[in-house]
């Protein structure tokens, strides 16, 4: 390996050739502040447009200050990262950025989690010396995401996520100079664009320019309405991340405290989306086996591979971008929607509650779930199966609002029957988890033998595209996994061209899967956090007594009492859906 010697802040350092000053400094423990730069190591995601100029450093012999994030190290370089000249430049740059930024931090949705606010604090800005024009642009509210581009600092992180990582291509910088903003084409609103609401732009936005549609007020109103029974479901990835909002280490599992907090907030029943994930496996796994056995019997009309359909952003992605493939994904609804559907039929009947008096709230790591629960096909007489979907972040806000001391809560259990789940339901929260859960059930249903081992390490990991062949009692089942829509696109292109050999493919829109969802606590560019959340999810799985969806006693009971069997007519009606070609017209 080629190395070179340089000096950073009077300290000699040996570093790899070809890296940036920022990386070199970081390797020796020198922190250089950055704003537009963002790097998620294991996911090969990097944004370094060199635009904000916060990371400038002094390089001896160079007339101008150099941006550390995009200047390569050179042999013998002498770098000063915190000279008076550097500090002055950083303060000036930041003051100029702030001179065109609304100073409404006190009431901004991003307050306390804002990289720009942190930077102003870090650089000790107490006065903005530059007074000039302020941008004014209309606010754009979609079903899931709000764009308030007056708060945009043109770091281009969202643009990078939308175009390079997700390949959705909705956001681009438009116009020039002072009028430049990040916007969809023709300055249309997000809800008219091909936006999937994956929320990765929200996840990386350093300011309050991109935020989720906050629905906590609706939830509070429902909770205080004594005529309503309000029940809650919580997605698997939430328990692996919520603790971060209460200063716990990333990867701390807070399942028990989460259930306790929801109960204290006043929900009448505290249920678990993991239950519905088990239900999804019953339906999707059966559908997969049906297609597979027809395929093996030589039925040429059968479509393979089967694609998972739990992720609403992924569903919207293929509806816009690959409508010709819309009969390939499983017709199974997502766990959120299966839960809502079962809650407002089976559970409501069981409890003698009228549909319109039952409010279903879901806690999701996701912003696209807000859009999903508003889709027309998930409503009965205009009453949605899921009334409100709030993010992990919104829930944290609600817990703080209610003055609940989260870290001192006892560990409590979910309520029955819709709160019982298996380890298979839990791993839905990470990339690779849905297909592993499906394999655990499909294997046993197909081979009629118990699985020799439950952990499929070959399906786990963080690589963007993974593949594995599982021995299904002599039949080699070929499985593909993609997370991040750009990776999904690659697999879809292969299906279209007929090169794909997979029988089943799992797709999740967000890098890392739901643990990296757009509604999770902000990772601020630290990919380690995602890995820790993933470990927590697998930890929860291995702690579970039952780890296969088809062994969940309450799922068995649900089929016995209500649904009949998987893919029955009733199951079809309540648990399956259809997809739409959205290539023309608006996204609704």
């Amino acid at each position, binding site marked *: 390996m080629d190395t070179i010697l340089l000096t950073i802040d009077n300290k000699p350092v040996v570093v790899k050739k070809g890296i940036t000053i920022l990386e070199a400094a970081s390797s020796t423990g020198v922190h250089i502040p950055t704003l537009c730069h963002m790097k998620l190591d294991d996911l090969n995601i990097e944004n370094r447009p060199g635009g904000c100029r916060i990371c400038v450093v002094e390089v001896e012999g160079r007339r101008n200050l150099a941006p550390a994030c995009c200047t390569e190290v050179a042999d013998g370089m002498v770098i000063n990262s915190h000279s008076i000249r550097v500090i002055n430049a950083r303060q000036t740059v930041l003051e100029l950025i702030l001179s065109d930024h609304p100073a409404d931090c006190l009431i901004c949705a991003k307050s306390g989690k804002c990289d720009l606010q942190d930077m102003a604090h870090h650089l000790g800005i107490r006065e903005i010396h530059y007074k000039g024009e302020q941008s004014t642009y209309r606010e754009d509210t979609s079903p899931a995401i709000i764009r308030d581009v007056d708060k945009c600092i043109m770091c281009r992180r969202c643009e990078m996520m939308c*175009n390079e990582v997700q390949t959705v291509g*909705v956001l681009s910088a438009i116009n020039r100079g002072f009028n430049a903003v990040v916007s969809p084409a*023709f300055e249309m609103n997000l809800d008219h664009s091909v936006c999937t609401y994956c929320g990765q732009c929200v996840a990386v936005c350093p300011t309050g320019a991109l935020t989720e549609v906050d629905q906590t007020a609706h939830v509070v109103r429902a909770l205080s309405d004594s005529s309503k029974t309000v029940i809650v479901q919580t997605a698997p990835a939430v328990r692996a991340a919520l603790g971060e909002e209460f200063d716990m280490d990333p990867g701390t599992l807070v399942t028990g405290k989460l259930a306790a907090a929801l109960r204290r907030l006043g929900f009448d029943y505290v249920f678990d989306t993991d239950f519905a994930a088990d239900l999804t496996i019953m339906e999707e796994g059966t559908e997969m086996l049906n297609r597979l056995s027809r395929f093996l019997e030589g039925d040429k009309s059968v479509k393979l591979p089967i694609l998972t359909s739990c992720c609403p952003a992924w569903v919207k992605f293929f509806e816009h971008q690959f409508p010709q493939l819309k009969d390939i994904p499983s017709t199974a609804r997502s766990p959120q929607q299966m839960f809502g559907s079962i809650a407002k039929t089976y559970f409501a009947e069981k409890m003698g509650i009228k549909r319109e008096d039952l409010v279903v709230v879901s806690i999701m790591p996701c912003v696209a779930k807000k859009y999903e629960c508003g889709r027309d096909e998930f409503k009965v007489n205009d009453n949605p199966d899921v009334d409100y979907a709030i993010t992990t972040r919104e829930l944290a806000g609600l817990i703080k609002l209610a003055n609940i001391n989260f870290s001192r809560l006892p560990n409590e259990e979910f309520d029955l029957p819709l709160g019982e789940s298996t380890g298979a339901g839990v791993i839905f929260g990470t990339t690779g988890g849905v297909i592993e859960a499906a394999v655990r059930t499909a294997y046993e249903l197909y081979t009629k033998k118990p699985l020799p081992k439950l952990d499929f390490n070959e399906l786990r990991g963080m690589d963007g595209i993974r593949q594995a062949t599982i021995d299904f009692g002599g039949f080699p089942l070929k499985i593909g996994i993609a997370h991040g829509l750009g990776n999904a696109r690659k697999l879809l292109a292969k299906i279209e061209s007929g090169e794909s050999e997979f029988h089943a493919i799992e797709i999740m829109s967000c890098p890392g899967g739901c643990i990296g969802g757009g509604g999770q606590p902000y990772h601020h560019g630290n990919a380690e956090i995602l890995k820790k959340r993933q470990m927590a999810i697998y930890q929860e799985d291995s702690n579970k007594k039952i780890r296969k969806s088809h062994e969940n006693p309450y799922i068995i009971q649900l089929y016995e009492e209500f649904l009949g069997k998987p893919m029955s007519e009733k199951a079809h009606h309540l648990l399956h859906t259809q997809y739409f070609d959205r290539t023309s017209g608006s996204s609704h």
Partner: protein
Amino acid sequence: MPKIKLAENTIQIIKDVCAEFNNSEGELINVLHKVQHKLGYLPAEVQEVIAKELNASVAKVYGVVTFYSFFTMIPKGEFPISICMGTACYVRGAEQVLSEFKRQLKVEVGESTNDGKFSLNCLRCVGACGLAPVVMVGEKVFGRVAPTQVKQIIAEYREGCPSEVAKSA
């Protein structure tokens, strides 16, 4: 923005231009340049076709169109009028000439008249500083234009027989 439907042959023109540049996203600016030259402007529907042909996002194409002032999404008039705002023309009164055009045609810079006859734009230096202030109508150059001549220039084009003023330049 009103939706327009592109004629089949217009779509073919765009596709041909894209093909000429190997449908390469890196040639986006050249493609936009040539398509605008052929069609006069780049409405949303044209950008959508270009994006599809070059396998680029529409947002990106729109980003480039709005970045460069040369590109326009508004159809040019039958007689596009350009006022030079270069230094020489400016100091010799181009701004007054421009105001007079705006007043006479009742349009702002970048707009076209309702009858589609004229569009008004500014440009930077046509390399005829000796004739400042300079006005171009289509490919024709008018030199040493005074605000008082503006009415006459417009009238002659409107009547369909431009020339006298041009000659005098």
